[in-house]
């Protein structure tokens, strides 16, 4: 059994890689466990380490839909679960005025599925085939919404007063991401499997760059990754994430820079806007620093 688990694990890692995501074995193990235990997976880590990407690639690997709920401050149940289509309902009421049927029937008609707008959460539990439900940046939503979400995640049912209870026809694979702007409740953490995603190490990042930017030669990719890893070790306000690495690679390729060395520091300066995103950090990157980092590549 253990051997087959190891096989499962390595085949999942291969599938993820084929879909364009280089996964740590720990993450793959968590994804397998998430399927077995039917629990949501909570991903934490700095911005730009590829949390959202996990959900996207999971949907690809499982050949299913991705339903995304982007959280924001003030997100309420109506925006996340369901909403009645009021305009159509009002119109229907006008049209039904001349109708002969009795009131109860008319009412039933107005509050039927036809006038229901499905928002991500309702949509996710009424799909035929279990989708991947991505709840992105849950820390931006407020605590009340978190409690609401907990209820959905524990029973997989939703009650709509006018319509009755909607039971899940399939259990979605739930991926929750958080940037840690707010402390999440213990109840939510307890219900989820947890994964902390860190900045990738040299080998992993190199594999990602090779995969996502095939235009870069192996030598250039190595230098790019070494440079970015060096930049991350510096005392920066906003460390470059994987997305920045890839952007920067694209920028270098576009400008026809084929090697990173101290001599080409001026050329590198022009591309830094893809890598460094705040003014203070930019100040920390004068030409000498770039030249020093480049020389170390």
């Amino acid at each position, binding site marked *: 059994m253990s051997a087959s688990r190891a096989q499962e694990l390595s085949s999942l890692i291969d599938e993820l890689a084929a879909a364009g995501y280089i996964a740590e074995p720990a993450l793959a193990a968590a994804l397998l466990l998430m399927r077995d235990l039917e629990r949501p997976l909570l991903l934490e*880590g700095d911005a730009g380490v590829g949390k959202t990407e996990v959900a996207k690639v999971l949907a690809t690997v499982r050949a299913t839909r991705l339903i995304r709920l982007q959280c924001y401050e003030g997100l309420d149940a109506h925006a996340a679960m369901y909403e009645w289509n009021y305009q159509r309902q009002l119109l229907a009421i006008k049209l039904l005025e001349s109708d002969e049927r009795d009131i109860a029937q008319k009412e039933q008609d107005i509050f039927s599925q036809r006038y229901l707008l499905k928002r991500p959460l309702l949509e996710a539990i009424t799909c035929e085939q279990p989708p991947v439900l991505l709840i992105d940046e849950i820390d931006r939503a407020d605590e009340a919404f978190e409690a609401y979400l907990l209820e959905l995640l524990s029973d997989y049912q939703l009650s709509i007063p006018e319509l009755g209870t909607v039971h899940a026809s399939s259990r979605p694979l739930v991926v929750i991401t958080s940037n840690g702007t707010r402390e999440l409740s213990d109840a939510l953490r307890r219900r989820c499997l947890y994964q902390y995603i860190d900045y990738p190490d040299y080998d992993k990042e190199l594999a990602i760059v090779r995969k996502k930017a095939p235009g870069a030669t192996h030598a250039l990719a190595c230098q790019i990754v070494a440079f970015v890893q060096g930049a991350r070790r510096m005392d920066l306000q906003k460390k470059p994430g994987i997305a920045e690495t890839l952007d920067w690679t694209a920028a270098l390729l576009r400008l026809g820079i084929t090697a990173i060395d101290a001599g080409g520091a001026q050329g590198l300066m022009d591309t830094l806007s893809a890598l460094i995103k705040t003014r203070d950090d930019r100040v920390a990157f004068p030409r000498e620093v770039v030249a020093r980092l480049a020389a170390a590549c």
Partner: protein
Amino acid sequence: MLTNGAPEIAERAADRLAGFPGFLRANGFAVGGGDAVQVLQTAERVGVLDREILRWSLQALLCGRADEWQRFDELFDAWFLPPNRWQRAERREAGDGARSPAGMPDEGDGDAAPAREDAAQRRTASPREVLGSTDFRALGEREHALEIEALMRRLARQLKPMLTRRDARARLGRRLDLPGTIRRSIASGGTPLHLAWKDRRRVRPRLVLLIDVSRSMALYSFFYLRLARSLAAELADVHSFIFHTRITGVSQALHDPDPWRAQERLHLLAQGFGGGTRIGESLAQFNREHAPRLVHSHTAVIVMSDGYDTGEPARLSQALAQLHRRARRVVWFNPLCNRPGYAPVAQGMQAALPHLDLLAPGADLASIRAVLPRLIEALH
């Protein structure tokens, strides 16, 4: 998997697995009672022969936050790997268990007895000396500590409406929420009697407390931590840190519903610090690790320190300047300010002054009470 081998071996393996959540709990993890069952189920599913797969699976199952995630590997090894380390871990767990029942006097093992002795000595000492103790355990034993906590709670409650209040001017230019209005009109038979308005996007004010717990502050840090605890209990968005030679978040520990255990946790957090005070380093670390997610345009950062800094003044100055750019207000409470003839001549204070919105005395509750309401007012 577990039932395949000889029965007693399977049983021992199951016991060890089932004991793991308890071990993690003893090490400060937030794992619950039902987790032992989950661990066994998981082990049955993933198998116990491949150590790494078991490790990754249990890590996903039992961790709940980043610091737990980072400590997990070590604890997993300690529990499952060599038996000699295993025993030590078990003893540690037993020690913790004996201490945890909320401050009940027990047949003291080596650990609890000195603490009680200390406490007994303190009961006969002057109040000044009580505050002078750096040991957080001694807090809450004396009536005046309770009294001052009650006063702090009252202050926090007074501040509460100020934090949640909406500006009267915000009513201008609001927008009608049509679906909401129609939803409400159902109660009045379809006539929209009560209009619903769209909420304005607004950012709540936030307080971040950075408390110096170095030796020179020993008289006051106890008091400030109590204040932080009271504020955190009553107000929604308060975040607390302690610093010394580096900075550590203590919001979690302060939130512990059991005050005695909160002290215990704070005590543990403060212990690992080396000598000296490096305010600049600590603030720079705060800027690096916490400020990006914590400090926004409606945040007040409150530093509570006497400004005796053994680090580079330039570093402090630079870190504060950076913080000041991010935060709406940076306020420094200095407990020495109340003393007659005080002037901010300490090097640290000199370096800090240009980047502060306010340097305020902070030796007693009254002086803090004079500042906080105005500070929160300014955040709106």
